[in-house]
C-alpha cells in the first residue's frame, strides 16, 4: 500500500486536486442557500456586490473544506467513501491543504468584509471556526450527536447571505438557519443507514454504530417531526407566503412519510430490498431542502413584484 502511494505521489498535484480540496459539491449547497438568503432580504444589493459576496462565501466554505480534509486525513484513508480524496490518495501534502485552507479563509473573510460588511464577514469567520475547530477537531470524534452540531456549520450560509444585504441578523435569517440545522440530521442518518461506512474503524462515533441502527431510525423520525413546524412556520415570517406555505406542506408530508417508513421497518426488511426506502428518503431530502429554498426565492421574486407574502 505504501509502495503504491509512493509511486503515485509525484509531489505535483493538478489544479483539480486543489479544487477537490474545497469540496465543490458541498460548495454548491452553500452557494444556493447563501444566494437565497441574500435575495430574499428586504434590502436590495448591487449585482456586482451580490456576486462577489456569494463568491467569497463559497470560497470561505471551500477553505473550511480544505482544513477539514487536512485534519481528517488520517480517518479519510480508512473509509472507502473518502480514501480517494487528494490527501489520502497522496496527490496533495497535508501541509499544502492546511496552507490553502488558512490562506483562503483569510482572503474570503477579509474580502467579504470589504465587499459587503463586517457582520457578514464575522459570521463567515465564525462558520469556518465552527466547522473546523468545534466540529472537525472536537465533536466529530467524541459524540454520536456530531451530525446534529456539525449541521450548524452548513446552516450558516443563508444567514451570511442575509447579513450581506441587511448588515444584521433577524428572525427570518434565523428561520433559514433552523431549516438547514434541523434538516441535516435526518438527511445524513438516512445516508449512514445504507452507506455503512467504516466509522467504527476510523474512530468516529456515528449514531448507527454507537446506538444501533434502530435508534438511528427513531432519531430520523423524531428530527423530521421536529423539522416540520420549523419548515411550515417559516411561511408566516416576512419571507414566507402562500407559495412557500403550499410547498412546505407538500414537501414536509413527503419527508415525514419517508421518515415514517424508515422507522417502521427493520434491518431484515431493509437488506431485502437493498435499502430502497432509505435511499429514496435520502434523495427526497435533497429535493426537500432545494424545494423549500426555491419556494423562498419565488416568494422573494413575488415580493419584489408587489405580490406574495401575507401583508
Amino acid at each position, binding site marked *: 500500500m505504501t509502495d503504491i502511494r509512493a509511486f503515485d505521489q*509525484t509531489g*505535483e*498535484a*493538478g*489544479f*483539480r486536486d*486543489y*479544487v477537490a480540496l474545497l469540496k465543490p459539491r458541498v460548495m454548491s449547497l452553500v452557494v444556493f442557500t447563501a444566494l437565497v438568503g441574500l435575495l430574499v432580504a428586504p434590502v436590495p444589493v*448591487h449585482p*456586482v*456586490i451580490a*456576486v*462577489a459576496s456569494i*463568491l467569497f462565501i463559497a470560497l470561505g466554505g471551500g477553505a473550511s473544506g480544505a482544513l477539514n480534509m487536512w485534519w481528517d486525513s488520517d480517518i479519510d484513508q480508512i473509509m472507502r467513501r473518502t480514501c480517494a480524496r487528494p490527501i489520502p490518495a497522496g496527490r496533495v501534502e497535508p501541509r499544502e491543504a492546511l496552507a490553502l485552507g488558512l490562506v483562503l479563509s483569510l482572503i474570503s473573510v477579509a474580502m467579504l468584509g*470589504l*465587499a459587503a460588511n463586517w457582520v457578514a464577514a464575522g459570521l463567515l469567520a465564525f462558520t469556518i471556526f465552527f466547522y473546523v475547530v468545534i466540529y472537525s477537531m472536537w465533536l466529530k470524534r467524541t459524540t454520536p450527536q456530531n451530525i446534529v452540531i456539525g449541521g450548524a456549520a452548513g446552516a450558516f450560509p443563508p444567514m451570511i447571505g442575509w447579513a450581506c444585504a441587511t448588515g444584521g441578523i433577524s428572525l427570518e435569517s434565523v428561520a433559514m438557519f433552523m431549516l438547514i440545522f434541523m434538516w441535516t440530521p435526518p438527511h445524513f442518518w438516512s445516508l449512514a443507514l445504507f452507506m455503512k461506512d467504516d466509522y467504527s474503524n476510523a474512530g468516529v462515533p456515528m449514531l448507527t454504530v454507537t446506538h444501533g441502527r434502530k435508534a438511528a431510525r427513531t432519531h430520523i423520525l423524531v428530527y423530521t417531526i421536529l423539522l416540520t413546524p420549523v419548515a411550515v412556520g417559516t411561511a408566516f415570517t416576512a419571507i414566507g407566503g402562500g407559495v412557500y406555505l403550499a410547498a412546505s406542506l407538500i414537501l414536509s408530508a413527503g419527508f415525514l412519510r419517508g421518515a415514517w417508513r424508515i422507522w417502521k421497518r427493520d434491518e431484515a426488511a431493509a437488506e431485502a430490498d437493498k435499502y430502497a426506502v432509505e435511499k429514496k428518503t435520502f434523495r427526497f431530502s435533497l429535493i426537500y431542502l432545494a424545494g423549500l429554498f426555491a419556494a423562498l426565492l419565488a416568494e422573494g421574486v413575488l415580493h419584489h413584484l408587489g405580490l406574495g407574502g401575507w401583508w
Partner: protein
Amino acid sequence: MGFSAGHEIFKRRLGRNLGLGGALLALVVLIFALTIVKVGDQPKPVSAKPAAASQGASG
C-alpha cells in the same frame, strides 16, 4: 536523471499554472468591478455654498 518532456508531471504543472492564473485574473477583474461600484456609490461631496449664505447661516 530527469523526467521526459511528455511526462505527466509537466501536464499537471501546466494545468495548475493555468488554473491559478485564471483564478488570479478572475480575482483582479472582481476587485476592479467592486472598486468601480464602491467608488461610484460614494455620496457626492456637498458643493461649497455661496459666501453670503454660509455667513448668514453661521451668523
